[in-house]
């Protein structure tokens, strides 16, 4: 047997091993070095951010978490960043799930983000977990006109009448936008068909790689922001991280007495290039600032982004190597195929 024959009959377990290493090694390397690859947002990820950013603080956002642990690898980071943007912006978040396990997804993402980084948000006033309801698109169809029909209580068993932020909510029409993290049916397509299209509500979709291509035709009329697969998550995550940092710096600047529009300009500048913050504090313009505010600003500039907000960007490392492996495998497979065919071989 020559090399080509041996390659053509390669035990597929070697390919499995290659795939395992292509994914495993970058995870270890990135885990130890802590470095991630840079991300440039594509228009759709930016649009997803802009929709939520353009709404006034305090807007009502329906967060529909329609996924399960099987797709958490792709959608978990999106869910994290969606919550982070809404929490930082001060939107009111209403979580629901159409997948039985979605209720657990709501719990894990809210406890990680709200519990860990926005502990000041009050349950029932700033966010509420309405839990899972069975019925797939029938749930959406019902709440488009009547919310309480399907959701008499929240996931913790409190009547919706007793939840302050549910006041004034009679149907989906009372919401300002819908954010959906979706792994299949029921999911983003159902939210487009039964809610976003008839109500003409802004809809932001974060979906798996399998669904993403089918969602593109709905942009921009029926879907305003689309995050496809882990790449979409990574782009959106980087936009949100940068913005949150600039917002926090803006707070520090304003608490130190720097006013608009100078504060916004500076915050944006420091967010793009954090090292500038420490040199700026020594300049004359910063003289008016209190020492505490200056220290806070420099702290913010040098503080690393918490690991949970870099999940998608970290995952782009194994993604890169595995994609190259896939391309290599397809090319190798074809090379072997054409080589054996030319010889009139086994094909």
């Amino acid at each position: 047997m020559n090399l080509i024959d041996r390659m053509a009959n390669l035990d597929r377990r070697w390919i499995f091993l290659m795939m395992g290493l292509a994914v495993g090694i970058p995870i270890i390397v990135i885990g130890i070095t802590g470095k991630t690859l840079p991300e440039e947002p594509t228009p759709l990820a930016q649009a997803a951010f802009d929709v939520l950013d353009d709404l006034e603080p305090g807007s009502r956002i329906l967060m529909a978490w329609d996924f399960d642990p099987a797709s958490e690898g792709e959608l978990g980071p999106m869910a994290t960043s969606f919550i982070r943007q809404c929490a930082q912006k001060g939107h009111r978040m209403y979580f629901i799930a159409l997948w039985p396990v979605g209720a657990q997804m709501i719990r894990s993402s809210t406890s990680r983000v709200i519990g860990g980084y926005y502990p000041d948000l009050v349950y029932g006033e700033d966010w509420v977990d309405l839990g899972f309801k069975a019925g797939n698109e029938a749930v959406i169809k019902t709440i488009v006109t009547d919310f309480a029909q399907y959701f008499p209580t929240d996931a913790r068993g409190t009547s919706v009448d007793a939840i302050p932020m549910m006041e004034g909510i009679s149907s989906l029409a009372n919401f300002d936008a819908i954010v959906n993290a979706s792994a299949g049916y029921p999911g983003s397509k159902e939210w487009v068909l039964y809610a976003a299209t008839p109500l003409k509500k802004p809809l932001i979709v974060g979906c798996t790689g399998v669904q993403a291509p089918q969602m593109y035709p709905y942009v921009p009329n029926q879907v305003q922001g689309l995050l496809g697969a882990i790449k979409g998550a990574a782009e959106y995550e980087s936009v949100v991280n940068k913005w949150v940092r600039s917002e926090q710096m803006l707070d520090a600047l304003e608490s130190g007495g720097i006013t608009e529009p100078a504060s916004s300009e500076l915050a944006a500048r420091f967010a793009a290039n954090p090292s500038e913050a420490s040199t700026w504090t020594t300049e004359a313009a910063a003289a008016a600032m209190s020492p505490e505010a200056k220290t806070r600003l420099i702290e913010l500039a040098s503080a690393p982004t918490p690991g949970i907000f870099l999940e998608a960007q970290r995952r782009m490392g194994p993604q890169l190597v595995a994609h190259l492996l896939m391309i290599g495998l397809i090319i190798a497979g074809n090379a072997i195929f054409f080589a054996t065919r030319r010889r009139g071989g086994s094909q």
Partner: protein
Amino acid sequence: MKRIVPLWITAIVGLVLIISNFLPGTRSWGEEATTWFGIIAAVAFVLGGGSLLKVHLKKISDRNSGWAYSMIVLGTFSATLAVGLFKIGVSPNPAFPDVPWSGDVQGQGTPFWWVYEYVFKPLTATMFAMLAFYIASAAFRAFRAKNFEAVLLLGTAFIILLGRTFAGYFMTSWIPVDGPFSGLRLEELSVYIMQVFNTAGNRAIIIGIALGIAGTSLKILMGLDRSYLGGGD
């Protein structure tokens, strides 16, 4: 009788739901029907559990091959069901500590949560993660550039695979961003493919499927398509 009643149920519920879209006075009828649908969907979960029980009990009683695995299925099924249904180890709702059954069965720390976190979650997630291995094996064995169409398919896949990672950015970073050829940068190209070619293809598919679904639905509601009632009169 066996077939007439279901046909009428389908027709009536369908009619009510369609009318409720157009006549405001009938809207609440539609809401009731869709809420009932959700309740029946939840009952279907019970049916699923019941069927599983039936199949595996039969397998065990017949001593079919692999009946020991059926024992595992039944054992884990009953254990999960017991801790969930009876809310074992669940603390009451903090707002109502005197109502013992008011607790949250899915809350962190309950035995039911433990089953989810350490059994259900790793198992289902890993099952899906296995697909990465199989798609790699398929890439090596099945994707052949035999004709022009296949080359188009594979070429697009390559652009997407490269353009959606840092590799694409790295390979074509020498093309100026604001120059006339910036569209040829792989990350731009992948966006262009998705928003134009993929959108066109999928839009046609969506339009086709929508017509198909509307047609089938109409046939079902009018009783012309009775395949869901099963074969044989």
